């Protein structure tokens, strides 16, 4: 209370300052007038009386100043004084100021950017009402987010913990609003989706569970605000309009509010379509297949008063019911809750781990910057010891001097923080408008909010006190008498000073950053040169879904065969193959398989889980996948022929023991049908670059048709001419079919995206760390040389050799560098384990990385000590000794 009062009083005095000054002035004048009145009465003239009165009053300005101080305006006013003085000091040494501000701006900017991304992707909940009670459901110990539709229905109807459970799925469709077929990314959602989330329409209406009356019963579309804006120019008349979706008529019901962009943080769909229309949307209907766990993600609000633990118990009891009732389809059914929006922990966990790691590294950068500035400040305080000593001798309290130093530190860090924040806002904005992948609606929706600003401000203030506090002890122990007498406190002793410690810490941090960025870069380079199981060079990809143009049933393979044949006739094309989903592409399909002897086909008895691809016979040739044994598929492997498959080496060795004797053996598919293995191909990468070898099956497209088609066109021809030829060929076949043409290397961007991003961000942090180290070592070396000029001069005069001189001048910085680097390298190796989950083959136990780090650190040391060394060598003892 008292503190508050005094604060209020002080703030009030600050604002009423001019008024108080005027009053004070008037009061003092009144005093002089009264005195003059008395003197006048004693016989003086008025003018003489006033003159005498003024003299008797004494130092008008001084008393006014003292009065003002006594009246309590001092804190704020002396603060203003401090700031003015600090600004003057900073302006006097622009080099120091610039280095300090830039160092901090870089460090705080890096922190703000990383925090901005962390905040946007991890900390901020989805933009729905009551987001804190919204949970996603994951299944099993591997925390799969995908559920089958029948399972979802059981979960929805049997649970007692959720207000309402909704499910959604990402898919691509062809949309034609009138002679302009184009493909769109959409969310297929259950009818209760909007109601379960509590979203209200911006325009028109949403669909509801009551609209779901069996397959294809709800041909409705709800547009996102962004898509409405970009494709319909915010035309309010779109509500009720019929458009063609995959050649089926769908009615636009309404538009969602602008702030609601679906339930995935990083994918912005164009519109929402009811899941019951799956057959029209995806060309297949798996809504009755309990064993088919596409990628249906389930989420819902917990009922009020239900804890997550209670909800999990509830879900698990449904799970054991499902296990008992559907032993063929439902294996081990346990559930857990997860934060929705990041496709559960599948993406959420590595992302969280990576961003947390990045935040930690950014924090280290800031710490290094503080260490850097701390030693700069300490050096500066030592250089200013004369000035400080004079001020102490003239009666300035040590408190006041410390406050002055802190004011300087805070000022620098606020300026640095502001510059850094500005930079981070610019780069975050760049990130948020960036669409990293041309093939997927991927967004990084990072809009810096108040959190980011507060964090930047806090970091600035904290760092100010960290580095500003470094010289505090030094100042408090300054003995003005000693300083003024001997000229300088520059004691260069053998003992370890706080500055040395700071430098070691800083170098260690830098070495950590350099190590981890090198590990990441090496991992990326390796993953680029590893075997994908296909050869992406010299191939073009034509991606389409025949369902988008209304093909279904038997017309699908017929049309696909026609496309392959037509593309084959383009001059320069070597081979054309078809695959339903590309390896390393969003939405890989997996299935469980059994050995031929298994009769009880429960999921628990499965021999393996394998990736599954439906391909045309020429696919291996077109993709450049090597056939190791047996034969490839042919066009005779059709519906009338026995079922066959080509498997990869991993599958062969896992199911049959070895790759060589697998040919002509049988395995059982999930539905129990026996499938003969006719060929073995090399292993490849299927779901991600970082995965271990996985079993994979390739089925003939005629035996298991798929409307999704990616045509792989291998040719040595010019890509541009080829693109044009492919375009006209496909359009000649069916003008209404939306498709995209890209090179395979472009397509791979999406698979490489995570490791690219990881490498890029680590690389940036590594460079920042290196920069900070250079300035840190440089500062230290330069300071030590300049402090020991005299000593070095004497040594030189006494006949010291260049080598000895350098050893004397720079031995210490180098020792610190070696010590710090070793510590950092060790820590970096430990920290790199986290990296291994994101960057393929990121291992710190790599001689190249070790050598690289050592080389980089020595280079840094050389670079940083070059100038001070030159300076030490160019000492002319005669001049030096004469001067001092």
């Amino acid at each position, binding site marked *: 209370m008292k503190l508050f009062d005094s604060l209020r009083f002080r703030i009030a005095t600050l604002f009423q300052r001019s008024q108080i000054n005027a009053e004070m002035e008037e*009061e*003092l004048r*009144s005093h002089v*007038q009264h005195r003059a009145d008395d003197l006048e009465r004693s016989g003086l003239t008025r003018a003489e009386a006033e003159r005498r009165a003024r003299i*008797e009053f004494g130092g008008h300005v001084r008393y006014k100043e003292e*009065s003002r101080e*006594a009246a309590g305006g001092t804190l704020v006013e002396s603060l203003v004084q401090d700031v003015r003085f600090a600004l003057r000091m900073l302006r006097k040494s622009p080099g120091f100021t610039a280095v300090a501000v830039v160092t901090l701006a870089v460090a705080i900017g890096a922190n703000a950017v990383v925090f901005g991304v962390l905040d946007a992707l991890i900390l901020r909940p989805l933009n729905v009402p009551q987001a804190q009670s919204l949970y996603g459901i994951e299944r099993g110990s591997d925390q799969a987010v995908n559920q089958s539709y029948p399972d979802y229905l059981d979960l929805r109807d049997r649970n007692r913990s959720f207000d309402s459970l909704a499910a959604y799925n990402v898919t691509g469709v062809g949309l034609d609003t009138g002679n302009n077929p184009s493909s769109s990314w959409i969310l297929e959602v259950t009818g209760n989706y909007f109601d379960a989330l509590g979203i209200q329409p911006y325009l028109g209406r949403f669909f509801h569970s009551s609209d779901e009356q069996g397959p294809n019963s709800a041909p409705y579309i709800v547009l996102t605000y962004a898509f409405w804006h970009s494709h319909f120019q915010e035309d309010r008349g779109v509500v009720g309009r019929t458009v063609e979706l995959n050649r089926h008529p769908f009615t636009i019901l309404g538009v969602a509010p602008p702030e609601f962009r679906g339930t995935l943080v990083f994918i912005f769909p164009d519109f929402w379509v009811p899941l019951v229309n799956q057959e029209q949307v995806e060309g297949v209907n798996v809504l009755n297949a309990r064993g088919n766990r596409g990628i249906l993600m389930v989420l819902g609000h917990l009922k009020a008063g239900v804890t997550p633990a209670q909800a999990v118990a509830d879900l698990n009891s449904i799970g054991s019911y499902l296990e008992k009732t559907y032993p063929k389809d439902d294996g081990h059914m346990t559930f857990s809750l997860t934060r929705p929006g990041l496709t559960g922990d599948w993406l959420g966990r590595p992302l969280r781990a990576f961003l947390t790691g990045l935040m930690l590294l950014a924090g280290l950068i800031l710490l290094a910057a503080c260490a850097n500035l701390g030693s700069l400040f300490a050096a500066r305080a030592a250089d200013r010891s004369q000035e400080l000593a004079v001020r102490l001798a003239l009666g300035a309290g040590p408190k006041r001097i410390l406050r002055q130093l802190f004011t300087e530190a805070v000022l620098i860090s606020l300026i640095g923080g502001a510059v850094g924040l500005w930079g981070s806002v610019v780069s975050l904005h760049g990130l948020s408008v960036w669409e990293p992948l041309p093939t997927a609606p991927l967004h990084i929706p990072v809009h810096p909010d108040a959190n980011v600003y507060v964090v930047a401000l806090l970091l600035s203030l904290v760092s100010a006190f960290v580095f500003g506090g470094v010289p505090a002890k030094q100042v408090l122990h300054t003995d003005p008498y000693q300083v003024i007498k001997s000229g300088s406190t520059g004691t260069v002793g053998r003992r370890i000073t706080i500055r040395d410690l700071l430098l070691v810490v800083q170098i260690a941090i830098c070495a950590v950053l350099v190590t981890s960025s090198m590990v990441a870069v090496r991992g990326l380079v390796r993953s680029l040169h590893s075997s994908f199981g296909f050869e992406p060079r010299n191939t073009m990809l034509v991606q389409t879904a025949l369902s988008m143009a209304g093909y279904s049933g038997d017309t699908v393979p017929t049309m696909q065969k026609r496309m392959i044949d037509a593309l084959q006739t383009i001059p320069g094309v070597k081979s054309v193959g078809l695959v339903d989903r590309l390896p390393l592409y969003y939405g890989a399909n997996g299935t469980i398989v059994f050995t031929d002897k298994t009769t009880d086909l429960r999921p628990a008895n499965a021999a393996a889980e394998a990736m599954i691809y439906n391909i045309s016979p020429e696919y291996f040739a077109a993709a450049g996948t090597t056939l190791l044994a047996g034969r490839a598929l042919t066009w005779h492997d059709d519906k009338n022929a026995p079922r066959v498959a080509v498997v990869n080496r991993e599958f062969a060795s896992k199911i049959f023991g070895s790759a060589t004797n697998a040919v002509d053996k049988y395995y059982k598919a999930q539905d129990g049908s026996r499938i003969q293995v006719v060929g073995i191909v090399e292993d490849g990468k299927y779901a991600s670059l970082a995965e271990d070898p996985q079993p994979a099956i390739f089925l003939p497209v005629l035996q298991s048709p798929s409307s999704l088609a990616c045509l792989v066109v291998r040719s040595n021809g010019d890509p541009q001419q080829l693109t044009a030829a492919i375009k006209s060929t496909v359009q000649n076949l069916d003008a209404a079919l939306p498709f995209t043409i890209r090179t395979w290397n472009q397509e791979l961007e999406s698979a490489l995206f995570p490791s690219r991003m990881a490498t890029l961000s680590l690389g940036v942090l590594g460079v920042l760390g290196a920069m900070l180290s250079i300035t840190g070592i440089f500062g230290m070396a330069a300071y030590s040389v300049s402090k020991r000029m005299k000593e070095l001069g004497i040594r030189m005069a006494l006949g010291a050799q260049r080598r000895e001189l350098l050893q004397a001048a720079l031995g210490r910085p180098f020792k610190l560098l070696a010590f710090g680097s070793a510590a950092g390298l060790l820590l970096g190796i430990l920290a790199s384990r986290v990296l291994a989950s994101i960057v393929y083959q990121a291992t710190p136990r790599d001689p190249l990385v070790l050598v690289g780090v050592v080389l980089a650190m020595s280079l840094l040391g050389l670079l940083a000590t070059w100038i001070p060394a030159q300076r030490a060598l160019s000492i002319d003892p005669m001049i030096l000794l004469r001067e001092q």
Partner: protein
Amino acid sequence: MTDQAQLLPGTLDLLILRAVSLGPLHGYGVLLRIGQISGNALLIEQGALYPGLFRLVRQGLLKPSWGTSENNRRAKFYELTAAGRKRLREETANWNRLVTAIASALSVQSEEV
């Protein structure tokens, strides 16, 4: 002027409180009153009075208010607050103790020790 005594540090506040305790005064009036009650024996530079006045106001011992002086001039008058009255009593007692102690110390003859 040379027969005037220098003020001991800290005693000006006490004198101001005492002066004002006899009735509200403006700054110059305080000076005159101190001169009057001390028999003009103390040397106070006129301006030095004001930091003291402001300090006492800030401590809540004096209450200022603008008014018109006997010379028909605008002036700021000070009067004692309850806290000021209490402080004056305490400080007076302190001062008396101090004076007694110092005086007895100074009056001691060598044979009395």
